[in-house]
Each structure stands twice: as structure tokens, then as C-alpha cells.
């Protein structure tokens, strides 16, 4: 245990602190997901509209947020708004803003993809049966689109959780930062702490994401059949 630096983990409240750090990361991702999903659905529906200008604007938003590494987006919001607008955002708020903007873009593309994947004859048959536009969407299109959408949006949650690890770089005290603090504090008594602590954080992330990935995979399979 000493050689692998795992002993530090069980000293005092170290493990609980680590879990607290993970909680901060999860909180940021869950808030961002909760905001991204409704906004993304809205934008995704708007993207299937025939209005060219609207579509071009939304497309630009999507591509701009997608092509930039999320870390660059974090820097832009965290450092950029301070200089350009004089805002004094704390790290967590900046992270939620960035991940919501990014998540909304990703979600809108998933929604658009799900909507246009519904074959045209579904719309036409609904009309031929005399359903109104609202009925058509409510009873025919949405149930089919949602089936395709659910596994993909669950995947978005794990992507969000993994991406929130980046908030470390703008000074948010999350699980990796807590691990660093614990390693530093125990440098003398446990010089190998870095191995054990980072391994633990690695596994914590895995434990947080793996069940969600499994669920997404299961749902995807069951919806395909």
C-alpha cells in the first residue's frame, strides 16, 4: 500500500474530500446538461424549419462551438469576458456557461438528426389520415424521434462529465485539484501518493461514467429492435 501510495487515501477525511471534489465536477455537468437539453431541443426543432436565415445562424453557432476545443471556450469566457465586458465570473459560473453553450449546440444537432431521420412518408401518411400538424408531431413524429434521441442524449451526459474535468484549468477546485492538494500535503509521509491518488481519480471517473454508458448502450439496442 505504501509503495503504491494508496495509504494516503484512507488517512483522515481524504477519501471523503475526493468524493466532494467529484461532486463539484458532477454538479457542474448536471446543471449544464439540465439546461442544454431543453435549449438543444428548441434549437434542434428550429434547425429543421425552412427559414434559410434562421438555419444559417443556427448552423454557424453549432459549427463555431464545435470546432473550438472546449478548453479554448473556457478560456474565452473565463478570461475574455473579464477583459471585454468587465465581468468578474467565478470559475464555476464560467464553466456552467461554457458547457451549457456547448451542450446546447451538441444537443441541437442530435435533435435535428433524429427529426430528419424520420422518413418523409411518415409525415405524408399522417397527413393522408387527416391528422392536424399538432397531432402529427405529437403522435407520429415525436415518439419515433425520442426513441432515437434518448440513448444519444444519455451519451451526451457522459461526454459532459468527462469534459468538466477541464474546469481544473480555470481554477475550479474539483476532484483532480483535491487530489493534487492531498498529494502535496502528504509529500513527506507518502512520496508515492501521486500514483495512488491519480489512479483513484481515474477509477472514480470510470465509476461515474460507465453505468451511464451501459444504460445508453442498452437503450440503443432495445430501440433498434
Amino acid at each position: 500500500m505504501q509503495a503504491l501510495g494508496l495509504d494516503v487515501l484512507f488517512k483522515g477525511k481524504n477519501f471523503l474530500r475526493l468524493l466532494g471534489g467529484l461532486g463539484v465536477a458532477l454538479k457542474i455537468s448536471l446543471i449544464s446538461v439540465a439546461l442544454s437539453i431543453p435549449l438543444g431541443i428548441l434549437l434542434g426543432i428550429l434547425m429543421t424549419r425552412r427559414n434559410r436565415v434562421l438555419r444559417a445562424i443556427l448552423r454557424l453557432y453549432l459549427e463555431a462551438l464545435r470546432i473550438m476545443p472546449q478548453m479554448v471556450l473556457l478560456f474565452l469566457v473565463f478570461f475574455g469576458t473579464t477583459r471585454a465586458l468587465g465581468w468578474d465570473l467565478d470559475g464555476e459560473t464560467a464553466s456552467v456557461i461554457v458547457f451549457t453553450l456547448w451542450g446546447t449546440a451538441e444537443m441541437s444537432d442530435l435533435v435535428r438528426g433524429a427529426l430528419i431521420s424520420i422518413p418523409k412518408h411518415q409525415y405524408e401518411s399522417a397527413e393522408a389520415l387527416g391528422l392536424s400538424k399538432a397531432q402529427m408531431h405529437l403522435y407520429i413524429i415525436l415518439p419515433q424521434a425520442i426513441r432515437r434521441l434518448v440513448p444519444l442524449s444519455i451519451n451526451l451526459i457522459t461526454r459532459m462529465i468527462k469534459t468538466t474535468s477541464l474546469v481544473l484549468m480555470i481554477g475550479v477546485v474539483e476532484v483532480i485539484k483535491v487530489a493534487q492538494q492531498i498529494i502535496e500535503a502528504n509529500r513527506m509521509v507518502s512520496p508515492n501518493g501521486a500514483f495512488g491518488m491519480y489512479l483513484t481519480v481515474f477509477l472514480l471517473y470510470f465509476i461515474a461514467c460507465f453505468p451511464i454508458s451501459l444504460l445508453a448502450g442498452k437503450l440503443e439496442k432495445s430501440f433498434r429492435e
Partner: protein
Amino acid sequence: MNAAVLQEYLPLYGKAALLTIRLGILGVLLSILTGLFCAAVQYLKIPLLKTIVRVYIELSRNTPLLIQLFFIYYGLPKIGIRTDPAVCGVAGLTFLGGSYMAEAFRSGLESIPPIQEESALSLGMTRIQAAVHVILPQALSVSVPAFVANVIFLLKETSVFSAVSLMDLMFTAKDLIGLYYDTTEALFLLVVFYLLMLLPVSILGSIIEKKVRYAGFGT
């Protein structure tokens, strides 16, 4: 925005971009090799190796690159495996990318119905001929969109390299902001350089996707 500052920063960003591109390309190439190997193992259902590959894929896909890099760079030296930052960056990117590539290739292989292989065999082809001439051309073209998305994803992920003190674009920007407080200029160049790197790849990717579909293979 101050032109003199931009001019002064430009060479620094150029150097950083070259480093990012070099390590990014190397990481992507190694990821492709790893991915091909893993997909082959899964397709051929080699016992034991198949299980190891599955565990690797799940571990790699469900953890962020940042902690993978931290573990390689700060954790592994404690048990005697020391790497310099560049090797660590490429190793981390390959560890992450290998599983994404493997999934892309695997989904391509799985999309080809068994009847294709059976027909090839009944025509008197060997298994290897069937794989090379019948299965792979179809499977690879199905994999193209996922493959292109992965390449862009991996190039974007190189921005995490700054965490293990590699002098990449992110590191340079953060350094300059900390030193001179010319935030606007530093961030502007950061965005410009990432666009210069990623836009061509993205455009090339969508051209390739269209070409492949035009050939009548893909979906």
C-alpha cells in the same frame, strides 16, 4: 487590439502550433493502428485478448484525457515508469483515441450482414480474400463519418496537453496572459490558430465523407 503585440506573439504561437500539429498527427496515427488492432481482435473473437480489449475500451472511453495524462505523467514515475511530456502526450492521446477508433471500425464491421461473407466464401474465396475484397471496403466506408469525427475530436483534445507542461497553444496563451495581461490579443491568436488547424481538417473530412457516399458504398 494592439498590432505590435500580435506581431510579437505570432512566432510563439507558430512554434506552439507546430508542436500541437506534430504530436496530434502522431497521436492520431497511433490511435488508428491501435483501433485497427482492437477492432480486428473483436471481429475475429480471439479469446482472452478480446476481453482485454473490451476492458481497455471501456476504461479509455469512460475517463477524461486530463486524468489519463496526469496518471501517466505524475503517477507512473512513482512505480518507475518515467516519460517526458511529449511522449506522455502522445501516449495519452493514443490511449484515448485507440478506443474511439476501435469503436468506429467495429461499428463499420458490424454493419456488414453475414450474408456478405457467406456469399464470398461460397464463391470460393478464402476468408482472407473475403475480408480484403468484400468486407473491408464496405466496412471502412461505413466507418468514415465516425472516423473523421474522431480525428477532429482527437486534434481538439490536444489542448489538454498544456496540463503536463507541454508548450502547446493553450500553454502559450495562458503563459502570455499571465505575463503581460494582453488578454484580448492572446485569446484572439489562440482562436485564430485553432481555426487554422481545425477548419481544413473539418472541410477535408466532409469532402471525404461525400466522396465515399458518392461511390455508393456508405449509407
